[in-house]
Structures are given as C-alpha cells and as structure tokens.
C-alpha cells in the first residue's frame, strides 16, 4: 500500500471511530465501497423479491380491510427497494447493473423469500416474524457509518412497525379463532420460525466479513447478537397468543436473561442460498417476467419525454 493510501486509510478509520458519517464523495477504501455495494444491493433485491410471497395473497385476502393493508404493505416494500437502490447508486454502481446481477443470479437476496406462502396464516406470520426480524436488523443499519444507507434504513424503519403490527394482529385474531384457524397459525409458525432465525445470516464463527464490517461500523452488532435479540423479543409475543415456537430446546437463562435456543440447520440455509430452496426458481422467473413486461412502459415514457423536449426546442 502506498504511503498516501495508508495515511488516507488511517484518517478514514479515525473518522469512523469518532462516529462520523461517511458521505458519497468522501474518500473511502475500495473494500468499504465494495462491501457496501454488495450489502445494500442484496438488501434492495430482498425488498423487491419479498413482495412476491405476499403479493401471492392480495387477490385472496379474506376481507377488504386485509386487502387494503396487504396492498399498502407490498407497495411499501417496493418503496424500500427503491430507497436502497438509490443509496447503492451513490457508490457508483448503476441501477441496471444491479438488476442484471439479480436476474442473472449473481447477486443474492434474503433466503427467507424462497419459501412458499401456503395459507392466509402465512401472511400474518411473515408480518410478525419476517418483518420483525427485518426491523431488528434495520434498526441497527439506521446507525451505520455510511450516510445514505443509514438514512434509507431510517426511512424504512418508520414504515416497518405497521408491517409487523398488522401481521401480529392477524395472528392474534386467528389464534383466538376456531380450532382450524389455530392449527393454521401453528402450522405457519412451525414453517417460518427457523427460516426467520436464518435471516440474520451465518453464525459469527462462520462469518468472515463480520470483523471488518464491525470495525468500519457498517454493522454495529454481530449476526448472533441480533438473532438473540430477535428471539428475546419474540418469545413473549408467541406466549401471549398461545402459539408454540417449534424448538424443544428453547429455555430462559436467568443469568444472561436470554432465551436460549436449539441448533439451527445451517445445511438448509446454505442449500437455499445456493438456489435449492422450494421457490428460488419461481422468484427469479417472476422478477424476470416483471422486468420484461415493464419494458414497453419505460420505452413509452422515454419516447414521450423525447417528443415533449423536441416540441419545447421547436
């Protein structure tokens, strides 16, 4: 490393240590830029792909109220994707490149969205558990060292509480409903619980990026710490509606004040990441077809803008 680079890196790390935010035009190590582009674009892709399992139920929502809610929530997720793409663009990658990376399978998105939504109780469970887990993660990211990413997450966090609450409302009503409804809720929670824990990523012992990301305050807490926080928040919520979390090893540790939980099936996690989840193929296919079918709209908008501009010049 050149002397100049070394001095710049030291100054950069000192700024971070002082709690300063890094802004787009500031000097930053190439690694920091690369890691952020990877993280932010993955996060953005997850918001977009995350619309699919829920969008699947819009036409079948059980009431007008639920339909309005679900439409608004899915629209929010599109908004979240767009806040994040624009944060990533400040680092010098453009939108088309990110879309291309998603569609070609080069870029990843959260493994959770590769599971199917089989019943209406899945929609409640997603709001409660999946958005609940996302809130824990995004609350941390709202304080990260990169200004545009922190601000995008702050904006997202303001909208997520509604997502979680509407989900928990569905669950609490169904959990107090008929036997069939109760069974439906329990079945959905049984399927979504472990994948929700996997949303926080691999265990700290197998997360090679964590040390660097934490030193640069891109992340302020490790995967395992965030996962523990989520479990601690969720257990009382499950008990309050008499839903059983599918983990026989779940027990409270008086000393650490943590809910200890059983072993996560990391083989499943890595298999889904590699594309072998139940819905990977459908999700990417849906994104591809949306991109293709929206093509004429973008072309028409461009033609219209060009025509209007020509008129103004004339």
């Amino acid at each position: 490393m050149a002397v100049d680079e070394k001095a710049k890196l030291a100054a950069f790390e000192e700024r971070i240590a002082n709690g300063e935010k890094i802004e787009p035009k500031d000097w930053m190590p190439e690694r920091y830029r690369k890691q952020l582009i990877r993280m932010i674009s993955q996060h953005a892709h997850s918001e977009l792909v995350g619309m699919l399992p829920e969008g699947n139920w819009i036409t079948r929502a059980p009431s007008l109220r639920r339909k309005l809610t679900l439409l608004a929530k899915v629209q929010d997720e599109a908004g979240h994707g767009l806040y994040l793409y624009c944060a990533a663009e400040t680092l010098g990658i453009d939108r088309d490149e990110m879309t291309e990376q998603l569609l070609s399978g080069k870029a990843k998105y959260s493994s959770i969205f590769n599971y199917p939504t089989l019943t209406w109780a899945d929609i409640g469970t997603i709001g409660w558990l999946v958005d609940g887990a996302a809130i824990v993660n995004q609350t941390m990211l709202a304080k990260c060292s990169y200004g545009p990413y922190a601000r995008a997450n702050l904006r997202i966090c303001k909208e997520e509480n509604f997502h979680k609450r509407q989900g928990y409302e569905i669950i609490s009503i169904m959990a107090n409903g008929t036997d069939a409804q109760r069974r439906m809720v329990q079945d959905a929670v049984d399927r979504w619980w472990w994948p929700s824990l996997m949303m926080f990523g691999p265990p700290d012992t197998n997360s090679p990026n964590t040390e660097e990301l934490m030193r640069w305050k891109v992340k302020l807490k490790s995967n395992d710490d965030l996962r523990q926080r989520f479990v601690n928040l969720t257990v009382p919520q499950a008990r309050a509606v008499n839903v059983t979390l599918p983990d026989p090893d779940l027990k409270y540790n008086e000393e650490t004040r943590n809910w200890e939980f059983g072993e996560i099936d990391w083989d499943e996690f890595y298999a889904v990441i590699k594309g072998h989840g139940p819905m990977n193929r459908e999700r990417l296919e849906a994104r591809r077809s949306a991109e293709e079918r929206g093509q004429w709209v973008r072309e028409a908008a461009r033609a219209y803008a060009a025509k209007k501009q020509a008129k103004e010049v004339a």
Partner: protein
Amino acid sequence: MNATEPLWEVFLREKQGAPHEHAGSVHAADAEQALQNARDVYARRGRVLSIWVVQTSEIAATSPSDDGPFFEPGNEKAYRHPQFYSVPRGIKGV
C-alpha cells in the same frame, strides 16, 4: 438491458413553514414522471406539502477536499460572532 432513465434528486417539504429537505432520488424520463415517482416512493404516508425534483447532473456541489480552503473565509472571522465583543459587566439585553 435498456439505458437507465436519468436520475433526479428529490426534496420534500413535510411541514408548513419548514424548508425542503433532501429525501433521496428516483429515475424518470422527464420532470413530470419524476414528480409522480417521487410521490409514489417518498410520499406514501401523507404529510408531504410539496416536492421538488432536480436532475442530479444539474447540481453543482463543493467537494470534500474543499473542506479547508473553500470554507476558510467563513471559519476565520471570529468578529462575525457576538462572543468576540466585550461589553461592561451587568449590562443586559446586549
């Protein structure tokens, strides 16, 4: 893949009497579409009173390396601050 539409920066005024503040950006073919996209992306929750959009390429900005010399004239003039001046003890309202 197609060429991306130009990027526009979005500014929102969320309170009566408050200034417009930067919210983020959108892609759009023209200003009209940029305003509509900005509404859909950044104003889904009401409360927004006004939106400005401006094409990102039209913005002129200082760069971080200007930090020292460019802003120096403002930093050095202590006599622009009231604490620079001393008045007799016990005087109020000055």
